[in-house]
């Protein structure tokens, strides 16, 4: 039995799982030996923070009806979708198929797209402010698409909104 703190080896497990399912080519995960690092120049309490997530969510109207179509797999189109950061999470519904459906049901949006918690941290002064938008990215198998299409759009929106730091949540 693994210990409670031992991380699951997802790269190995998914490779074996999809090979067994008949896929010929293994998925190539993003792999970098180094990365950029920009130190903060002021306390987080003075920073504007933006939430960016690969969580699949649809926005709902006041009566709980989706106002947009759900997207499961990324295409080659630009796929960065904003959510107003003051939107109550009750107006968001998960359409994820990328979670462990035997362990969690994604009913609590704040467990993966923590807009309420971030607003609480702003209210208590731990964070300066939130960007007007939180962003969703559609999961995509293409590194080229992520690096050349979606990521530059995230950066563009973050800069346009005066963002100092980004909270990324993976689903």
């Amino acid at each position, binding site marked *: 039995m693994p210990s409670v703190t031992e*991380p*699951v080896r997802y790269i190995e497990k998914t490779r*074996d*799982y999809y090979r067994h399912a008949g896929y010929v080519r293994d998925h190539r995960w993003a792999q970098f030996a180094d990365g950029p690092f920009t130190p903060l120049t002021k306390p987080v309490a003075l920073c504007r923070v933006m939430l960016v997530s690969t969580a699949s969510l649809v926005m709902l109207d006041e009566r709980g009806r989706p106002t947009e179509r759900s997207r499961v797999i990324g295409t080659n189109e630009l796929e960065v979708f904003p959510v107003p950061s003051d939107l109550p999470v009750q107006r968001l519904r998960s359409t994820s198929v990328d979670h462990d459906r035997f362990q969690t049901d994604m009913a609590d949006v704040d467990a*993966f797209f923590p807009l309420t918690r971030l607003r609480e941290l702003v209210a208590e002064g731990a964070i300066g402010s939130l960007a007007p938008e939180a962003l969703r990215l559609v999961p995509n198998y293409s590194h080229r698409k992520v690096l050349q299409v979606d990521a530059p759009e995230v950066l563009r929106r973050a800069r346009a909104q005066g963002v100092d730091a980004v909270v*990324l949540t*993976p689903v």
Partner: protein
Amino acid sequence: MARDITESAFTPRAVFTNYPLGNPCGRPGDRAEQLAILRTGLRLLEQASAPGTLVESPCVWSQDTAWMRLIFSEEQPFLSAEAEAQRLAELEWARRQKAARAEA
């Protein structure tokens, strides 16, 4: 969340929570835990001094670790049959769009 995939992608700073995929910010319904995990991330923003810094949150999903074995197993197919059918349909739709664009 997946520690190995996060490390492979080399994020500047990361908070790892050893929870089943879908709850990287804490246990559903547990406001205090979700706040604690976010606070750990905010501290990391101020205190990390090198890229690739990863902090492990002490949260434990369950003393029963069966979920770690069962994820991506034949016993528990990752996608439901409906989700798999929809995934293939969307993939096919995306391929057709691409082909249509190539022709245009």
